[in-house]
């Protein structure tokens, strides 16, 4: 009697992801986030009722990768466009993916007002402390002393102000229902036999993404800031960039829950 082995798919094709290869740089967490969002849309079975508002920056080409309706907004305006869609069609699942410049520089008004009004949309901000697509200029979240093409001698807080703590800022706004800072960067655990990499951050981020959509379904505004790397513009090898986030960026921008009106983190 022969036994046949049956292989079951544990993780596989995502309905919400298209077949198109991505344009993201090697190791960029935009790709990771795209996959997490796709997995969540599949999990919650909301793909056909989802409208994504794409922004300007490395996130702009998401309409090629996520299999749902898209509107490509002007730089910084995604929350306002999302509000326009959601207010007319409250049954739809509307979300944005924005960079730190899009959400916190040119779009800071739109970001704050959507939160302030409690607009029931989901906002994802990929924070890599730099303007990636345009070639590495300084961002609102660039750390003091950090070298970028428009701060070639290091960011000077006396002239440009200090770094913007997005989750802290939005967490203080009464209209917001869920404000969370997570990290998409692999964790590095030193070990006598050599470094060990885990995806604890990634799995927490996956939960945050799901919570963010759940909060919208409950009628609230959700904001998730996701720490990421930009190894090309930081001019660092990929794993060194991950280390920079884990050691420097996370210290300045601690991960955690900055607001949770519905208590989704506890469920």
């Amino acid at each position: 009697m022969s036994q046949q082995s049956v292989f079951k798919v544990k993780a596989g094709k995502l309905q919400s992801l298209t077949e198109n290869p991505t344009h993201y740089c090697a190791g960029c967490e935009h790709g990771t986030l795209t996959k997490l969002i796709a997995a969540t849309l599949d999990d919650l079975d909301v793909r056909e009722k989802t409208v994504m508002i794409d922004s300007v920056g490395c996130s702009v080409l998401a309409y090629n990768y996520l299999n749902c309706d898209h509107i490509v907004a002007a730089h910084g305006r995604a929350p306002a466009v999302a509000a326009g869609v959601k207010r007319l069609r409250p049954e739809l699942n509307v979300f944005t993916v924005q960079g730190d410049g899009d959400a916190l520089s040119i779009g800071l008004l739109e970001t704050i007002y959507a939160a302030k009004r409690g607009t029931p949309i989901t906002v994802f901000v990929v924070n890599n402390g730099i303007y990636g697509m345009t070639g590495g200029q300084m961002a609102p979240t660039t750390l003091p002393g950090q070298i970028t093409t428009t701060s070639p001698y290091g960011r000077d807080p006396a002239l440009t102000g200090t770094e913007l703590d997005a989750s802290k800022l939005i967490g203080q706004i009464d209209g917001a229902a869920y404000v969370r800072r997570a990290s998409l960067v692999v964790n590095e655990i030193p070990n006598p036999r050599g470094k060990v990499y885990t995806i604890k951050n990634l799995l927490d981020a996956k939960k945050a993404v799901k919570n963010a959509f759940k909060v919208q379904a409950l009628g609230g505004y959700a904001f998730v800031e996701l720490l990421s790397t930009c190894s090309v513009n930081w001019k660092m090898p990929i794993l060194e960039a991950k280390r920079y986030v884990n050691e420097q960026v996370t210290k300045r921008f601690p991960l955690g829950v900055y607001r949770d009106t519905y208590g989704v983190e506890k469920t």
Partner: protein
Amino acid sequence: MSETVIIGPRANVKILAERCKGCELCIVSCPSGNLKFSAKLNPAGFHPVEFTYQGTKGTCTGCAICYWVCPDYAIQEIQVRG
């Protein structure tokens, strides 16, 4: 009555090599060391990742960490023997 003993993997990892950008994240994250850079180049000019059934630290368990950590969906499917 003879019994067929299954020698082989507990899990399968399907990789689309042409999507891989050689970021190395899956290689360093694999707990059983079952992934390595291929000696060949893919059409984009990267050394893509290759799956071995017997890793440096054991057999692939189908944990799917590589699937989740890959930013490019080059690791397309994880199958586990049920």
